């Protein structure tokens, strides 16, 4: 089925850009509202975020937004002004770029790249540049320490993140995220194709690796040493106020949304619904994907609000001595089974 009118490519490009620009802050706000304000308040008996606006504290997020926008834009005296101002933009840009390849329906994808998942992981690694820029340009030793910790941690956990995905790529036989979704939809479990074959069943190890590494990439507790508020007073973000801080906030929660969407697409079958095809899949796809994203995000934030922080050496040992060997073994086993069957 094609559209009745020919749409010029410039308009399509503008529309796609607008959609991406709208989805990220929206996703970040949804995660911030549902998990940070509501779930955490329930789990930790916090009364504050349940109060503003009357019913269930619905006004809290809007109030926070207004508060951030009217704050003074403080720049430290010794700061490197240009680098300081650009750092949050680099972090947010890397988040925006990831969304371009995540499919939400048979035709609902901004850019269907042949290298799909590889592209997503490559651009998500760019945020480290922004974090190091922020840490250095603040001219503050806590910020610098936070930036250094972030760089060491993000480099270490990028490996298990990428290696954890390789098993899925071997099984699907493609890097294209749309192709990975279709491979799961058309797959069969011992000849039964009722729910397709979500790769979480065969790649449960890869799924676990991906979630743990994503938790570290997002610098969420128990891997939040770069922003550890009790020792580094929130690390590389310490000098940022107002809307510049808001950018880091959107970057953090937007990236959480992006990684949850990637995990849903790679391991949980993405937008696909067995038996639904064509326009119906285009309409229902985003809804299904959003439900899965919320489920994965729930796991991420559940862990975040439950566990205490690891120590720096435990963090590095975990990545290099535990996760990477498991990931390599997973690749070997998947490869052998792929050839054998």
């Amino acid at each position, binding site marked *: 089925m094609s559209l009745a009118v020919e749409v010029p490519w410039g308009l399509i490009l503008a529309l796609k850009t607008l959609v991406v620009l709208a989805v990220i802050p929206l996703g970040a706000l949804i995660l911030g509202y549902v998990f940070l304000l509501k779930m955490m308040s329930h789990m930790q008996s916090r009364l504050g975020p349940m109060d503003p606006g009357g019913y269930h504290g619905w006004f809290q997020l809007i109030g926070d937004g207004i508060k951030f926008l009217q704050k003074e834009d403080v720049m430290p005296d010794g700061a490197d002004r240009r680098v300081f101002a650009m750092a949050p933009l680099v972090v947010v840009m890397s988040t925006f770029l990831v969304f371009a390849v995540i499919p939400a329906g048979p035709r609902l994808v901004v850019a269907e790249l042949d290298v799909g998942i590889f592209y997503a992981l490559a651009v998500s*690694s760019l945020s480290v540049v922004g974090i190091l820029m922020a840490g250095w340009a603040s001219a503050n030793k806590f910020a610098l320490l936070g*930036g250094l910790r972030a760089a060491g941690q993000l*480099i270490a956990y990028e490996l298990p993140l990428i290696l954890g995905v390789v098993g899925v790529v071997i099984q699907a036989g493609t890097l294209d995220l749309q192709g990975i979704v279709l491979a799961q939809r058309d797959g069969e479990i011992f000849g039964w194709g009722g729910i397709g074959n979500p790769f979480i069943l065969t790649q449960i190890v890869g799924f676990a690796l991906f979630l743990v590494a994503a938790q570290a990439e997002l610098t969420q507790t128990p891997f939040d040493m770069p922003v550890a508020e009790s020792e580094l007073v929130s690390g590389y973000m310490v000098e940022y106020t107002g809307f510049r801080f808001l950018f880091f906030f959107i970057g953090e929660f937007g990236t959480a949304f992006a990684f949850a969407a990637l995990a849903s697409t790679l391991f949980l079958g993405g937008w696909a619904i067995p038996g639904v095809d064509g326009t119906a899949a285009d309409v229902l796809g985003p809804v299904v994907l959003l439900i899965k994203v919320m489920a994965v995000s729930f796991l991420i934030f559940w862990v975040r609000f439950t566990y205490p922080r690891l120590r720096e050496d435990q963090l590095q040992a975990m990545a290099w001595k535990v996760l990477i060997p498991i990931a390599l073994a997973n690749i070997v086993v998947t490869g052998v089974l792929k050839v054998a069957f």
Partner: protein
Amino acid sequence: MVAQNVAFWVLAVVMVAAAIGVVRSRNVVHAALYLVVVLAGVAAQFILLAAEFVAWVQVLIYIGAVVILFLFGIMLTRAPMGSDTPLDNDQRLPAALAALALGVLLVAAVVDAFRGVEIDIAGRSGPTPTSEIARSIFRTFVVPFELVSVLLLAALIGAIVLARRD
């Protein structure tokens, strides 16, 4: 092809300007950040050549890992704010000669290797499929590929031997 040529020259100008920034900058961190722009420009040129996979390898390895390690090293050892640290030494003439020689050598080698070869970008429906690259690495060029990986492994072990103190 006009659009590709325009894009090439725009990118080339940005890359050369950023490359001059790398060597002219009086601050090591600024130089490393200019290098990010140059490397991103290289990735963009690869995309213009329909080599999508290579472009994102460039981003992941060079920006996502190499420059990060540069910045990490600079900030771990000394993190100069401002621009009072002298970065120049008195070797402008040898440096210019070496750069010129390298430039001539690279241009000559590339022109000689690809004389008369035209990449048919207009005839393709899209970028080079990743499966084609995989086939050429793991089938046609599998022996050089394995040699390079052994070399890298040797370098890795060497680095560990040099770094450990016991």
